[in-house]
């Protein structure tokens, strides 16, 4: 059975928490779906602890900086993923390298998806979110977009019409 893996990327800090907060919601939403695995990752390369096969699909949930106005939600694939605005340590393998590893191992480009929400570009100037509640609007918006995407994926993969929200 092929699976959809949903990985929230991030950390316990600031806007970077959004990916984890969204996957917290999605893990509840899709708790009954045996073909959906939801996990939070502090480093994208940790996904290799899951037994992913080329038949599976992956959805990354993340926040990003520098592509659009704050709050904008965008979807990317391996070929449209923009270059990183900051150089990460080689010891902290970034999303782009992780995606390259996945495709190198045979996962088709079209099985890899990234949905991300734009955080304020200048985080030093922008109001720093003190609690997860401060991020609620962004988390709600990104969770809704991800949920819609998953519903679409389930309907496409099962051949059923797209008219209900999964898990509701």
């Amino acid at each position, binding site marked *: 059975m092929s699976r959809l893996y949903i990985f929230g990327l991030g950390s316990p800090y600031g806007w970077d928490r959004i990916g984890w907060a969204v996957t917290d919601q999605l893990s509840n939403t899709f708790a009954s779906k045996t073909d959906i695995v939801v996990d939070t990752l502090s*480093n994208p390369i940790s996904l290799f602890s899951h037994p992913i096969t080329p038949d599976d699909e992956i959805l990354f949930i993340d926040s990003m900086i520098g592509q659009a106005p704050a709050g904008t939600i965008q979807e990317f694939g391996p070929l449209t993923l923009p270059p990183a605005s900051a150089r990460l340590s*080689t010891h902290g393998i970034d999303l782009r390298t992780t995606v390259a590893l996945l495709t190198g191992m045979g996962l088709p480009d079209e099985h890899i998806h990234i949905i991300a929400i734009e955080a304020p570009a200048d985080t030093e100037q922008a109001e720093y979110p003190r609690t997860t509640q401060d991020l609620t609007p962004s988390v709600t918006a990104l969770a809704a977009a991800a949920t819609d995407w998953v519903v679409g994926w389930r309907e496409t993969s099962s051949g059923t019409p797209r008219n209900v929200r999964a898990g509701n």
Partner: protein
Amino acid sequence: MSDLRTGEIHVPILARVEGEGALDIRIRDGRIDELHLRIFEPPRLFEKLLEGRPVQDVIDSVARICGICPVAYQMSAVSAIESIFDFTPSPWVQAMRRAMYCGEWIQSHSLHVHLLAAPDFLGFNSAPEMAKQFPLEVRRGLRLQSIGNDIIRTFGGRSVHPVGVRPGGFFRAPDASAMAALRQKIQDSLDEARDLITWVATLPIPEDDQNFISVSLRQNGEYPIMGNRIVSDHGLDIAIEDYEQHFREFQVPYSTALHALLDERPYLVGPLARINNNYALLPLELREIIEATGIQFPSRNMFHSILARAIEIHFALTETLWLTEQYDPGATAYVEPKIKAGIGYGCTEAPRGILWHRYALDEQGHVLEARIVPPTSQNQARMEEDLKTSLTRFGLDNTDDALRLHGEMVVRNYDPCISCATHFLDFRAERQ
């Protein structure tokens, strides 16, 4: 091209190493006239940042020096601090700290073997390229890496910059179910770790024997992770407190990281040095796996570092299993030490080699002075020595591109962590 070649080769950015460095080589009349491993990442001034901080801030702050070896920084710091407090952690705490440290070796070594070093030996430009032909091997390596992360997370709350370590022990003990799940994962990975050693031993590793001094810790009859003596294969055997009497750190004008010499000679720290100095302390079963590869230790071939890392992954997995075999979740996670003023030393075996700390604390336990000597600084002089030997042996009449690639391969073989190495204080003074 004649053997009396003259010219310059520049590698402006070293790829697949942590941090920012470059390599400049000047060849004159067929010989390397000048070779500089140039580190230009700005100094990070951590030692100065620690001054005035309480000890828990030290433990949590030094973890931020490195994203790949935060446990090593925490352990060197906490052991130095506890020595000032005349405090000896309980056997349970010592065992669990050693297990946590094993997690760091596993994740760091797995990353280096599969994503940074192996592509060199197999002729690939990158790990994703290598993954196309060796998907199972790369996946195996990344699974092992994730187990290392799991071990760190179990004790430290998270795998990157963990927060579980404190003077006297840990903030909390992992619960029994978390430990049982971790142990099962480790148990399930042992065959893969054995296969990894066999696979690495079959890589086309160049023959490049050299004379060098191996320096490591020695730890009471155990394979060293946190020891109290520094030894070499050339007769050195000193207490960690005497480090500064034998090792000299100094500035070179082209690098923001200090170099270090042992009795005025370059030396090697890291997994190959550890195995060279402590081979007999590896478990018998592991030594049998190694001997079946036909490769012998001690080894003078620097490129056997990749095999040393694979060996230490297996060791760290079995060691963690052994340390947690009789795991007691009800153990006292820490005892509050009594704060004292004084000077203390800590030295542990980071994935890349010995990591030496010295702290002076005041009566409130705040830092008066800190000194940190990371392994990459210690390996820099050895790397330059190795580059001169290895490139000359490789053949200076090779094309610039070939020499550049070989030079990068030599540097990457040390898994240098440049960001760790660039934290010293006396930048301007040393430049004068």
